[in-house]
Every structure is written in C-alpha cells, then in structure tokens.
C-alpha cells in the first residue's frame, strides 16, 4: 500500500527517514492519507533560453501550509506562479512536464485558465487592491462569476472580511476607497478578495515582504486560521516565517528542489548539506 503511494524521490526520502525516526512516522502516514492538491511531475520551465525550473517533483497535500524557501532567483516565485498559470503572462515562457491540480494536468490544452484561477487564488507580494471601494474589491470576484444578488454579495463581503480578520477595522467604511488603508490592511483586503470566491488553494507570493512586523504577524496568524479550510502554499524569503507557520517546507536552489520535508525536519535536521548551509545563513 505504502509503496504504491510512492510518487517521487522526496516522499521516498521521507519514508526512509521516518523509519529511522519512530516519532515522525505517524505524521508521514497521516500525510499519505491526505489528498494531493498539486502533483508536480518532471516539470521544467524556461524564460526564453533561461532554464528557470528543472525537473521539479513535488506533491502538495490538502490543508497543509507548504512553505517554499530559497535565495533570490531560485525559481520559488516562478513555481507558484506556474500553479495558477500566471507565469504565462510572460510571453516567452515555455514549459514541459506535468502539474496536476486534483489529478488533472493544468497545462492540458482544453484546461480553461479562468476555471483554474477560480479554484486557485493568489495573494501577491505587494498589496494590489483595485482602485475601488472596499466593498467593490471584495465583491469583484463573485460579480464576475455571475453573483448579482445584493443580499448574497453583502453576506459574502462580510464573511470574507471576517475571514481575513479585517472586518472590525473596515466595517464602518466599506464604501471608502481601499487605497486609504494601510499596507497591512490592504494586504488583508487582498486576502479577503481571494476568499470571496471560496477557492480551494491559496497561493501567497511573499505576502508579508512589503509589510511592517505587526502587519506581518497578523497575516501569519491569519494563515494559521485559514489552513483549516484551505490548502496554502506560501513563498517566503523569511526563514523564521517558514518555520513559524508552515507544515511542510520545500527548499529551492537554482531552479531545483533540493529538499522537501516536514518543516520541523528541514529546520532541525536537514538531509542535504546545501539546505543546512542556507538555513544557517551561510548563503542567500
């Protein structure tokens, strides 16, 4: 049974390690029972001639917070932008290999990108609310997907803002422009905007890199709350953040996955020397 579940080198490594360490075994077995949200198989990506992602194999599980760490230019942002195909906005991108979302290859010709992005939401590095009212920001997603009923929209807006832990701060000024909010509040508005269409997965591309420490803390707490209902993949250059909030961590280097394991394991006893060097701040 376990053997049939072995999908790639990384999980194999997990099992080898878990057999050495009895304490971790239960986690790994639980893990095997979780559904795979994103299965990446031999995935390669080029920007023109630049080979940005090399033979990526990575299985991301349901209701996990998966952190992706690595030095600048290692391909971590490129990878999560591949997961909702935002990377295709760069015209010179070429890909091969497979990324399955819920067992269907997202790069299949007949896969509609709008459908994928409705399921896989994204929060960006810099808060990017629309220059509209707070209400219209949140209602934008439901509206383009055909929800017009004012009452339903009102409920969605309140629920999403509560979900993003910002309702109390903005409930009295829903009709004001979102640009009047602070950076941290704007980022939580963007998270609420993403929650409003109830996606399955939330991708976060360094969501706190433009925020002050207090706003960062709020977003981190929020991620912890959201993981009950969503699978979250978060790119971060802040290793403490990865250690604090994630269940799994993937370490990227030069477009390759060096190591992917439970976060505790990565930060205490990494297998690969390069991971250890990076974690301990020897480069990057």
């Amino acid at each position, binding site marked *: 049974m376990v053997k049939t579940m072995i999908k790639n080198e990384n999980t194999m490594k997990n099992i080898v390690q878990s057999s050495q360490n009895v304490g971790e075994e239960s986690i790994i077995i639980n893990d095997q029972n979780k559904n795979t949200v994103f299965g990446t198989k031999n995935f390669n990506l080029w920007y023109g001639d630049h080979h940005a992602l090399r033979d990526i194999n990575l299985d991301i599980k349901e209701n996990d917070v998966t952190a992706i760490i690595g030095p600048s230019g290692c391909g971590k942002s490129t990878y999560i932008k591949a997961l*909702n195909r*935002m990377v295709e*906005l760069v*015209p010179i991108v070429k890909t091969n290999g497979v990324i399955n979302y819920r067992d269907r290859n997202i790069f299949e010709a007949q896969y509609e990108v*709008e*459908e*994928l*992005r*409705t399921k896989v*939401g*994204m929060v*960006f590095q*810099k808060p*990017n*609310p*629309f*220059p*509209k009212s707070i209400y219209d920001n949140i209602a*934008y*997603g439901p*509206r*383009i*997907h055909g929800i017009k009923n004012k009452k339903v929209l009102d409920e969605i807006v309140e629920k999403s803002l509560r979900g993003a832990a910002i309702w109390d701060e903005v409930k009295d000024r829903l009709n004001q422009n979102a*640009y009047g909010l602070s950076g941290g509040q704007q980022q939580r508005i*963007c998270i609420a*905007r*993403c929650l409003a*269409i109830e996606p399955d997965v939330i991708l976060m591309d360094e969501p706190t890199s433009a925020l002050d420490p207090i706003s960062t803390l709020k977003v981190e707490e929020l991620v912890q709350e959201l993981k009950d209902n969503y699978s979250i993949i978060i790119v971060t250059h802040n290793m403490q953040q990865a250690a604090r909030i994630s269940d799994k961590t993937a370490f990227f280097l030069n477009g390759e996955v060096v190591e992917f394991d439970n976060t505790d394991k990565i930060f205490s006893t990494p297998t690969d020397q390069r991971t250890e060097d990076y974690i301990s701040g020897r480069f990057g």
Partner: protein
Amino acid sequence: MASQGSGNGQSIQDMIAKSRNSKGKKITEKLMPILLFIAALISVLTTIGIVFTLIFETFEFFQRVSITDYLFGTNWFPFSGNNPTFGVLPLILGTLKITVIAIIVAVPIGLAAAIYLSEYASDKARRTIKPILEVLAGVPTIVYGFFALTFVTPILQQLIPSLKIFNALSPGIVVGIMIIPMIASLSEDAMSSVPNSIREGALALGATKFEVAIKVVLPAALSGIISSIVLAVSRALGETMIVSLAGGATPTFNFDVTGSIQTMTAYIVQVSSGDAGYGTTIYYSIYAVGFTLFIFTLIMNLLAHYISKRFREEY
C-alpha cells in the same frame, strides 16, 4: 599624476575652482533664469492680450446690439441690408450639431482602439499603430475638409438621397474621425499607466481579459479617459476648416443634420475672408462670436483639468 601632467601645473581642484569663479559662468547663471522667465512671460502675456482684445471688441459690439438679442435670438442674418439680426443661437446650434455627431463617432471608436492598444496589442503592434495614430492627428484640417466635401458627402448621399451638398452630417463625421487619434492616444496613455499588479489581481480571481479591461482597467483610468474626451470635445467645438468647407453657410435653428448649417467658426471665416469694413457691426460681431466660442472651449478645458485632478487615482 594628472595634475602634474596638465599644461600649467595646476591640480584638478584648482582648475575647477577657477572655472567656478569665472565671470562668464556667474553671469550666465544670473542671466539664464531671467531669459527663461521672459520666454514664459511672452506666452502668458500674448494670451492675456488676446483675451483683452476679444473682450474689448465684444464690448464695442454690445454697444450696438443688445446682449439679450444676441444670446437668445434665433435669427442670425447679419448681412440682410437694412435690418440685420444677430441672434447667436443658430451658430451655437450648428456648432453643437457638429460636436455631437463627432463625439458619437469618435468616443466608441477611440475607446475601442485604446482598449485594443493597451490591453491586447503586442508590443510590436502598439509600437507600429500608435505613431500612425499620432500622424493621423497631424493631418492638416483643410485636407480633412475636402475629404468631407468630395469623398464622404457623395457616399452619404448614396445612403441618404435627401442629403444636401452642404450638411452637418458629413463634416460632423469627419471631425469625429479627426479627433479619434486624440481620444485613442490619450486614453491609451491613461490605461497603460494602470499598474499591471492590478490586472494580475483580477486575472488571479479568474477574470477573463475582457473583464479585466472593462471592469478594472477602464474604471481605474476613467479620469484620464474623460479628460481626453473633454479635450476632444473642445477641439471639435473649435474646428474650423472642415465645417467651413463641407458644412455650408446657412445659420439654421433646427435639429436637421441633412441640410446646410453654419458654425461659429465658419461664420468668423466667412466674415474675415469677405469684405466687411473695419468698424461695421459685422466686423465687431466676429469678436463677439469668437468670445462666445472662447467661453465654450475655456469651460471644456477647465472641466478637463478639474476632472483629471478630482478623479485622479493614486496607485
């Protein structure tokens, strides 16, 4: 080493100090701001001078013709020998007919072109099309004028047999064509300056390209788009050659667009190129009409200024 190498054995710092203290440099520094100020002043003074002349001569006109007759009169027959009438409304109506037709033609086409250029066109296509649009904006209006008279009017006459040789429709359409590049180019600038991060935010929610263009980019660029339209309206109001050539010279007070009309500008051309003597009422009337037109375009320009300030989005 370099200091010894230089001709008279000075160090670089010595040479810099010498140059800084030289008389020529000091005078230039003092003189230049004054010259630049004079240049700026000339344009301001000329404008003020023109406005004053307009007001002065207009005042003279209103000594002869009552201001209420001028503003509310519906008959404009300045040349009818013993009993000339100077009711400006037919000229204003003629001008508005042209402007409205032009806007109906130019706004949809100009905006559609702007959306294409900003949201859909490849870099290469944009780099090719935009300069062509801007060249189109530089075609002399007299060329548009005979284009209206000799090309557009005959085609329209095939479609609408009752259309007169001189009419409002044909020059209206051509004025519209003339201002399309203005609307397209300025609106495209406004839409291109909407940051990509906002487009990405919408795309990441599963919006299609068209939904992003219409529901995010267009509203975000609205202030720039509206001010481009207002500027285009102002341009259409003041357009002269096209309407003089193809619009006719019959000031009429009705809403028919198939017959001959006269705009404010066309009237001024008619009088200026004719033989109205200096000091006659007709002579002064062109200042009054010019001043009226000036008020219209001034309001439009102020409106454009206000809109672009008031509704500016800070990204």
